[in-house]
Structures are given as C-alpha cells and as structure tokens.
C-alpha cells in the first residue's frame, strides 16, 4: 500500500443535528419520500447524467438503493429503511417519512434531543402494546375463508405505485394473478394427486459448462507440451455427458453457459438442455425438483436436487432431482420452457409482461412486495386499516393516552411534564403528517371526532358548501359519510379524545396494509429517529475514498 500521502486526521463534528446543512439534507430527503407516498405520489427520475439507464420509480427500496448519500445521518436513515424493506417489503416509505418527520419535529421543539428520544421510546411502547392488543380498533383479522381480504391487501400494494402504469382492468387482473400465485405456493396437506408415468430425472449445475476453467483463480497454470487445455476440458465435459445419459437424466439445467458440443451431443441423445438460468432461478429450481420426503417408496435414492458445482468428478446419484413433465409455455412472441413439478412442491411462476421496461421494473418490485405481504399474513393473520386511517387513529389514541399516563411517565422517565407533553405532541403530529402525505393536489384530510379515521375531501369546495357535505367515505373505506359525525382538519390540534371502536359495521375496508410490515416500520422509524437524536459526535476518517463514520454518544 502506498504511504506517500500524509495521513489525514479524523474529523469530529459535535451535535450534528444542530448543523443547518444536515437538517437541510434531512428536509430534502423527507420531501422526496413524502412526495412518493400513496397512489397519487410523484415519481422520481434517477440517472447518472451520462446517458445511462433512466430509472423512474416511487418505491423506497429502489429509490434509496439507487441514490448515494453524502452525509452519515441521511445514510443511517436510508440504511434503516432498506433493511426494513428487505425483510418486509412493504411500508418502507412510511418508515422513512415517519422517521424524518420525527426528526423534524424534535428539532422544532425546544427540548434536549436525548429527552425527546426517551419520550419517543416510551410512546412507541404504548403504540406497540395497543396495536398488538386483541381489541385494537384499527386492526382487522384476515379471513382465509374468502379471498376478499387477500385481494384487498394486494390491491392496496399494487395501486399505490403509479409507475406501474396499469389501467383499472389491468390492475385487477394482476391482483388476481398475484393472489392466485400466492395460493398456489401455500403447501396444502390434503391433496394427494395420483401421478401417471415416471418422473423425469434432472441434473442441475451451478458451474459453467462452457469449457473454460471456471475455478482456475488468479494463479497461472502449467501444462505439459502436448496437452491442449481446451480439448482436455471438453473431453471431461463429454464424459460427464455420457454419465448423465447412462444415469437416465432427461433434463440438464445449468446456471451458466453449456458448451455447444456438449449441448449438441446431449440433444442428440434426447436430453433437454436449459442453460443460462441465472442465479435468481437456482433456489426455486432446487426447491421444485426436490422430492417430498413423504414418498420414499417411489424413488428411494433421490433426495432433493442439488446444484453441482464441478464437472470434474462424477455426479453423485443423490444430486439428481426430478420434474413431472416438461412443456412449452407461449407468452406473446416468447417461448418459455415450462417445468411441472413431480409430487406437490409449492412452486409457481408469475409471468409479468408490460409495455415498457420502466413500468415492468416497477411492476416486478411491486408484485414481489405484494407476495411478501401475503406471505406475512400466514404468520400473523391481521391487517391494519389503510388510507391513513391507522395513522390518524393511532395519533389520536396516543394523544389521549399520553395525557392520562403523564404523571406516571414523567416520574419513570425523569423528565419534566412540559417536555413530555411537547414531545408527545410532536410524536402525534409526525404520525398525522405521515397520514397527510397521502393527500393529492386536490384533496385535504379531515379527521372525524369519533373513530379518528382520516377522510380525504376536496381541497377547493364550491362556495357555500361545507366540507362535511362533501366527504364520501374514510380513507380505508370502512365508514361512509354519516350525518351525525363531526370533522376537524387533520393535524390542526383538537381536544384529546379516546377513539371509539367501530362496532356492528357491515362494511368492509377497501384499503388494507400489512400488519407485520407496518408494525415493524413504526418501530424502525422511531428507533432510527432515536438513534439519530442520541448522536453526539460524528467522527469521520478522511483517509479513505468512501469515508467511514463512527458515532459516539
């Protein structure tokens, strides 16, 4: 390593949050994320300004992965959101918006940041307790007896991304396909399909069969004068082919390229060769070709197919897997090889098509999110009311609850009563701001003073008409306009009241959010905000190109 340049001393910044530069960056990030939220969210174009690929998206995971942030504080926020989306898929924007809103609120308050963090932490506990209660009134049970709730959950995810560019009919079709795909992947114990004919034996290679020395590494290779490496490798490949043929393999699949000579030889012997599968397909392929443990009598020696990482030794027999049948699936002008599983492993393929690459990319990410959301319902069959109703409801609940527990809390946390109330107000305000981020240009948000749901209504009502006459139904669609209700603009402050549970309603919510994703997003948002609030110093090592940072409290 070169030691020519003098080593730079580390740079230490104290109280980073008071820096106007940092808060400006945070505010911009907040604005970016807020404007992305919801069905009327705006898209962002990301490109490198030298004519490369242009990304158009409003999905947090895509957006934050594509941008490189310069300051450790926004970086921390983005990393937290990305971590959340990699596990839960949905609610990344919610986490980002809420976290930055909490930070903006904390900066506005004239309270020491660590004290605010303590109060936030306590309030998060209250939220979590309330949301996990059985009788939480912004939570609904997901009924598996009908597909209605699953469809609603999926529809909520798909319609929240305008870059998917779907008409209503197209969106409905894709929602159906996604739910159907999900249901196909849920293993069922009842089906016992009798199968006709023998299964086809499959070999899967993760190494390249192109005839090059894949594992050669960096070192040099010494060969004897007479030997020709390429021919020797090809000879080995052909021997491998012979073995596959004698072992009765019918399908050779390879993650990378297969040598044309081997391919030709195998095809001549009646094998199907599928090459260039790519890394993403390997895992599902292994899953699908694996035999179920329940049927050992049929093909005893076969366990699940394992990808073979070398071609230089004979393939162990146990590495083969099997598929039921092979077919050709036509999709537009494309012809796709269609493998049908032997046995009953729950694998299915969702084929997505779109007019442009931009929309297809967004649609793909959105469908993956929807699939993750549906999968989470298996573990936790609940959903939260969407359309901003959960946020406004929760804000209302916390505002009321914090008033009732204030004496206890101040003695527990060791902070002053006014600090506690200010921080609590900031917390509720952040939640309401997150709900209001769903507003489009033409709507404003109201909150009813009974159940504390969010009601979108026209921003410019005709003269002489009151808001109350214009409201149709609340954001989640559970309550529709009732004459005996009172409304107030959301986030403008009102007397605290305990939001009443909704009883005996026949209507169903139109918008649902994933419960586990939203709960985790809430926790991620508050904890990340607390972490940033607790930051006292940022110490940056200036010696590396990509400066690493450490924080100390």
């Amino acid at each position, binding site marked *: 390593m070169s030691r020519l340049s003098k080593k730079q001393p580390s740079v230490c910044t104290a109280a980073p949050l008071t820096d106007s530069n940092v808060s400006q960056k945070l505010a911009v990030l907040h604005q970016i994320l807020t404007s992305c939220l919801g069905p009327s969210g705006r898209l962002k*174009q990301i490109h490198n300004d030298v004519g490369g690929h242009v990304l158009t998206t409003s999905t947090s995971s895509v957006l934050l992965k594509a*941008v490189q942030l310069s300051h450790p504080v926004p970086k921390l926020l983005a990393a937290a959101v990305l971590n959340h989306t990699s596990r839960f898929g949905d609610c990344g924007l919610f986490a980002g918006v809420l976290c930055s809103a909490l930070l903006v609120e904390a900066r506005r308050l004239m309270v020491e940041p660590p004290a605010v963090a303590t109060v936030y932490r306590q309030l998060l506990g209250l939220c979590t307790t309330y949301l996990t209660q059985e009788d939480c009134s912004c939570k609904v049970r997901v009924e598996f007896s009908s597909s209605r709730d699953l469809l609603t959950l999926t529809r909520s995810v798909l319609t929240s991304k305008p870059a998917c560019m779907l008409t209503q009919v197209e969106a409905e079709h894709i929602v159906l396909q996604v739910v159907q795909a999900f249901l196909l992947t849920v293993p069922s114990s009842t089906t016992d399909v009798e199968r006709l004919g023998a299964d086809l034996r499959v070999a899967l290679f993760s190494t390249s069969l192109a005839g090059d020395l894949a594992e050669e590494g960096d070192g040099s290779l010494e060969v004897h004068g007479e030997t020709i490496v390429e021919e020797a490798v090809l000879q080995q490949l052909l021997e491998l082919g012979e073995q596959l043929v004698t072992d009765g393999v019918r399908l050779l699949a390879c993650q990378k390229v297969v040598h044309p000579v081997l391919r030709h030889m195998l095809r001549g012997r009646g094998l199907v060769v599928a090459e260039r599968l790519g890394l993403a397909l390997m895992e599902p392929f292994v899953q699908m070709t694996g035999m179920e443990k329940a049927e050992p009598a049929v093909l005893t020696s076969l366990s699940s197919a394992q990808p073979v990482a070398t071609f230089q030794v004979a393939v162990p027999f146990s590495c083969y897997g099997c598929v039921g049948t092979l077919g050709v699936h036509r999709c537009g002008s494309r012809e796709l090889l269609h493998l049908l599983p032997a046995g009953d492993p729950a694998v299915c393929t969702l084929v997505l098509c779109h007019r*442009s690459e931009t929309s297809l990319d967004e649609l793909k990410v959105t469908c993956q999110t929807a699939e993750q959301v549906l999968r989470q319902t298996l573990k936790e069959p609940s959903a939260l009311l969407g359309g901003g109703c959960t946020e406004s409801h929760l804000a209302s609940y916390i505002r009321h609850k914090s008033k009732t527990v204030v004496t206890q809390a101040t003695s527990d946390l060791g902070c002053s009563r006014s600090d506690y109330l200010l921080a609590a107000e900031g917390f509720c305000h952040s939640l309401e701001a997150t709900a209001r981020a769903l507003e489009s240009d033409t709507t404003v948000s109201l909150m009813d003073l009974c159940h504390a749901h969010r009601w979108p209504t026209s921003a410019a009502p005709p003269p002489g008409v009151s808001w109350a006459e214009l409201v149709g139904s609340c954001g989640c669609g559970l309550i529709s306009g009732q004459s005996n209700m009172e409304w107030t603009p959301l986030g403008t402050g009102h007397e605290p009241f305990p939001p009443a549970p909704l009883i005996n309603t026949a209507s169903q919510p139109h918008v649902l959010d994933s419960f586990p994703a939203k709960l985790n997003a809430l926790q991620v948002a508050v904890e990340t905000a607390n972490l940033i609030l607790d930051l006292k110093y940022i110490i940056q090592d200036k010696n590396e190109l990509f400066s690493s940072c450490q924080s100390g409290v």
Partner: protein
Amino acid sequence: MFKLDVLINITEVISHQCRKQAFMKAGRVCVCNAWLPRSPSNKLGGLPRNSSAHACRERARPEVCGTLLLLEMPWGCGAVGGEQHAGLQQLIALAAATKSFLGPNKSYKFVDDQAGHGGSFLVCSPSRLLEHLELSCPVSQLLLETVQAHQKAFCTGAGTLIFLAGAWSLAALECLRDGIPVCDIVSALTEGLDSCTEACRMSCVTVAEAIRSYGSLKSRQANRAHGDATSVKVSSQSATGSDVFHSSSAHLPGQAASRCGSLRPDQEHKALASLRHRARLRHSRYFNEKEESTGAESGSERSPRCESSSSHLCDLGSEDVAFLGSTVSHGSENLMNLVIEASRIQRENSEGRLLGGTVFDVSKLATCLVEGLWEEHSCVTSGLVTFVSVDQASLIQGLTNQSLRVAIFDGDLSEKYRHLGFRKPSGVRRVAEVSNAPRPLREGGWLERVLDTLLQLEVNLLLVNGVVCTHLAELCLRRGIAFVERVESGVLQHLAEATGAVPLTYVTQMSEHCVGEGALVAIWREGIGDGRRVAVNIRAGRSALVTAVITSTVQSKLRSLEDRFWGCAHRLHHSLRDGKLLRGGGEVELDCIRHLRGLLRDGPSTGACGQNRSAVLQRMSHGWMDYIATLLWNSGECSSKLEAWDACSRAAEQQVPGSTLPTVISNLHPQLNADWLEGGRGGRSATPVYDNMTVKLEAWRRALDLVLIVLQTDMEIIAGSSHRDTEGLPAHFIIL
C-alpha cells in the same frame, strides 16, 4: 419522394455553445436551439423555441464518489412554476422533430454529426432519427426506450406514438398552465383514451368486410356456388395433385423470381389489376380448386368465424391479399407490391401446407440491399439472395442445378472463434519435459481437420452466421465447397429446417446427421454487384423463405427503403393476424374526437372536477386534431396547416357518419373535385386506407403511458456525481 426538410445537427460544438446559456435559465434543464435557425422553412413553428431535445450539462465527471446531486426542477409539482414542466417540454420538442414523417409523403432528414465520428445519416423514420440523435436528457432516453419496445413488438406505428406523445404532452402542459392538478389530468386522460379505445374496437372493420366491400370475396362466393357440385371430388384428388406440382416446381431455381415494384403511384391501379391477373394465371389448376373446396366445406359457418378469428383468413385469395396490402401500404405502394408478391410466392411454394394458418408468414422473409440499380429493379425472389465474393462465381456456376449437401454454422469458421460465454483461460504456461519436443502445428492441423471433415461428409455448401477465415476460404474454393457468410440467424434457422441440417458451432461437431440436403444454389442475376461481389440465390426444397431485393441508386436511401419495406410487411402481417382494421387516413382519429365530444356532453361538467375534466378532454382531442391536420398537410391535401385544422374541425362537427375527411376537403375546394375522383396527384386515390388496429391502439396507449410517467415525475436525481462537479452549480441543485 426525395425531399429534405430539417438539418439536425448533433455536434458537440454547438451543444457546447448552448451550455453557457443553459444554466442561466433558472430551474430548467437547458436547451439547445442552435439547429432551429438553420432551416428557415422548417415545420417546427408553434412550438416552444427555447426547448429542444438536446439537454446539455456542463460538467465532466472524472470519478464517481459517494454523493448525489439532486436536481430539483419545477416539474409541475405544487404551486411553483407548474407551467414550466421541463420533461413535458422536452417531449414536445422531440416529437416536433418527427412531424414530417407522418403520412404517406415522408420527407428525408439528414442527421449530420460534425464531431466527426459518426458521419451523416439519411433518415426517414422517427425511430431511426431517435437512434442517431445524441440523447442526453433522461426524458429522451425514456422516449427511445418506449419507441424501441414498440418497434420490436410491431415494426410499425412509431410515428403515431411519438406524434401523440408530443401532442398529449402539449395538452398536459397547457392544462398545468391553467392550474389543473396533476391527478385530474391523469384521470381524465386515462378515461378519455380508455373510452376511445373501446369505441374504436367497436367500430373496427373486419378484413373480410373490407375485402367484401371491394367485391372480390363476393365474386368468389358466387363462383363457389357455381362449382359446388364438383368441388368435393376435386378436393380428394388435390392432395396428390399438389404434391406432384410441388415436387416439380421446387427444383427449378429462379422460376419464381419476378419483377414488380416498377410502378408509379399513378399507375398503381393498372398495376394492381395486372398483378391480380398474373397471380391468377400462375396458379395451378389444382391449387385454385383445392382452395375453393376447403372454403366450401366450411362455408356454412364461415361468416361468423371470419368475424371472430383471424385463422380463417387463410382462405383469402391472392387478389384479396393484394387489395388488403394496398389498403395498408400508407404511401409505400412499390414496397407493398414487393410484400404482396412475396406472399404470393410463399403460397405457391408452400402449396397445400398453409403457412401456420395464414397466407403470409413475415418471419420467412429476408431482404437484400443492392446499391447502384434503379429502384424499379427491386423485386422478390424465392429463397435467399445474398452476396458472395466474386471468386466463387465460377464455382457456383458449376454447382448450379445440383442438389447440394449443406452445413450450417452459427458463429465464425476460424480457429480462434469460441462460442459466446467462453472465457479463455489466462496464465497458461507450457512446460515441456523434453526440451526440444516439437510444438504441435496448430494452424495447419486445424485447417486440415476441418477440410477432411467437410470432404468426408461431402459438403458442398457452407452457410455461416459470421465469417470464414481466409485460409479456410481459399482451401474451400480449391476443393469446390461454396460458402456464404453473414447469413442472419433467423434465415439460417429456416434453411436448416428446410434442408434438415443442424446448426453447429464447431466443425469438430459435424457428423452425418448434421448435414442437410437438397439445397440449390445459382448465380442470381448477372451484373449485380460491384465487381467484388456477386449475388447468389440459395433455395431449399421445402422452404417458404422469400427474399426481397431492394435497389436504389442512392446508397444512403437503402436503409430507409428497407425499414419501410419491413413496415409494409408487418402492416400486412398484423392485418391478417388481427383480422380487423381501423379506418385510416385520419378517419379513426376523427371518430375519437367525435367520441370525446360525446363524452364531454354526457359527463359531469359542473364543479371544479367536472370543469377540469372537460378542459383536459378538450385538449386531448386537440392532440388528435393536430395529428389529422399534420397528416393532411404533409400529404398535400391542404395548402396550409390552418386550412387543415379548419377542415378537420368541420369534419368533427358533423355528426353524420358519412361525413368523412375527403368529402369535407372536397367541399373546401370544389375545383379540385375532379382530381380526387381520378385519384390524381396529391389527392386520395380510390383505394380505401386502413390502419392496423392492435398497432394503432397500442401506440396510443404507449404514448399516453409515457406522457403520464413524465407528467407524474416531479424530480430528477442525478446519481454518482463527484464533489468537483458541484462547484458553481445553480441554486436548484442540492447535494444530498
């Protein structure tokens, strides 16, 4: 047909000059209008002159470091500067450059790269123009992506797409200027297009109807009733009869080569008629009889099935296909005649066996470009026509009229060539146990082995996707093996299927069963080529492959002619596949304008929401109006754009279904009536004009999707810029 219109200049020099002004303009992606003043007669009037396709940026990027530039633009978000949506302006400017490509009379454009690396190009289609422009702003990248996706799927209709993307961007921009919120614009535009698409699907014309109105099917049905009694008997004989015919005709090289395309538009009718006449004469007796008998068998259920599926279009006669082709030729009659002729040859070659259920298989079509000959020499030939080096001329002459054994290779034929995905091992060191051991003679060894294999398998003809190395080429010539290089992979595939050959990568793979048989080769036509190359014709017994030889004296026109030929071929292909057509020449757009007016009448028009909706739908219909007006103006039917707008809005006002554009225009110019009736110059001919339904509706949808994506974008984020770039940036740049 060869008129020049706008010089588009893509030089670095000019864009450099603009850069300085560019960043002066607050909050805008900059613009380069240097090329506009260069053409005083350009048709770009009425567009924002200060915006253009060439957005330039002022920084060089030496290295990427972990920062992000956020270019915050007033992209129509919220209250600030909603009327200055930069993305929409860029779309409008890009679309404006392609306006002269609309309609049957297309103007050529020169794209001149004065920086010196690209040379100049002559382009005649919007997709080619976009390809040759230096597209630096992200919106133009999006447009290019959209257009290329559409071209890939349909091969035609890109002009409509770009034009409407521009027109509807203008509509959206005007709406923003009026303070209509983005979500209202989005919902109204979507509603408008959905409704119009539905209306168009309802009002489409089936291919059978289109042909019936012209009279051919009717007469054939009458014929069929007449010959019904004998048809069954004939059909039982026809199988053997057609086989005989086929085997006799397939081995006569050059028989089906025929000339057409030497036609001027004013001769079109006569030519069509003669083509029809000739087509009938060329048909075998058996062929005609069989076709009619199959028609008679399914006669009872024919009309309903004709409406519902396209597969029954396979009983179209040659004259029906010719008529259908002429209705979707869109100004390229000569090239469409080539396509029609290709379809006829395909039917003849594949007699009895239908081409996958249709009368025309666009995938079994190839082109060969010949420079130096008049365009009248364009023609269509059965089999593949391509060039080989002149050294092979005598060899090929010797092989003529022999059934050849053929080997097909999908890469290069050279020792160095390796298949795709092969990584040559690096760092290989040879060690010899005996110091003076002879090194293997690789070069000679490989050549000899290859030649041995070829001779052993008695191969006479090599078809190669890549090139043949010179040493091997010499040896092949000496041993009497002909080779053809740079054959397209699709064509190779067809020839492989037709001869029974298996496409290979290496010669070492060759074995007896990989060699195909029955290929015929002949010098295609003497005197074609430039002295270094000679044109050969390769045919395989059972292949429906047809080559269109496209000729032009102007070399740079060849590519445009080829593009237009493929456009024609795909329009015919889509008409047959859809089985449905839209009325062309602006009629269907006129229907859409009328339909939108209906929507405006019926829908809510009060309240803020209703008012916004009416305003958006109104502007959307202006987009279509502009389309028709540009079409009329480009085709010379109106002397000014104003007149075209006038004619168009008059036609739109008349609710009578019969009031088509020609009638309205003829009312404007009573003195020209006679011309039109004769189908004279500049006027409409008597042949109706149709558009492909799927292509057109998809183009509309893609155009709107693009506009909506751009409209809903409110920020442009530039990733991966370095710190050095950020010095002296305007205030609207924020480093995140």
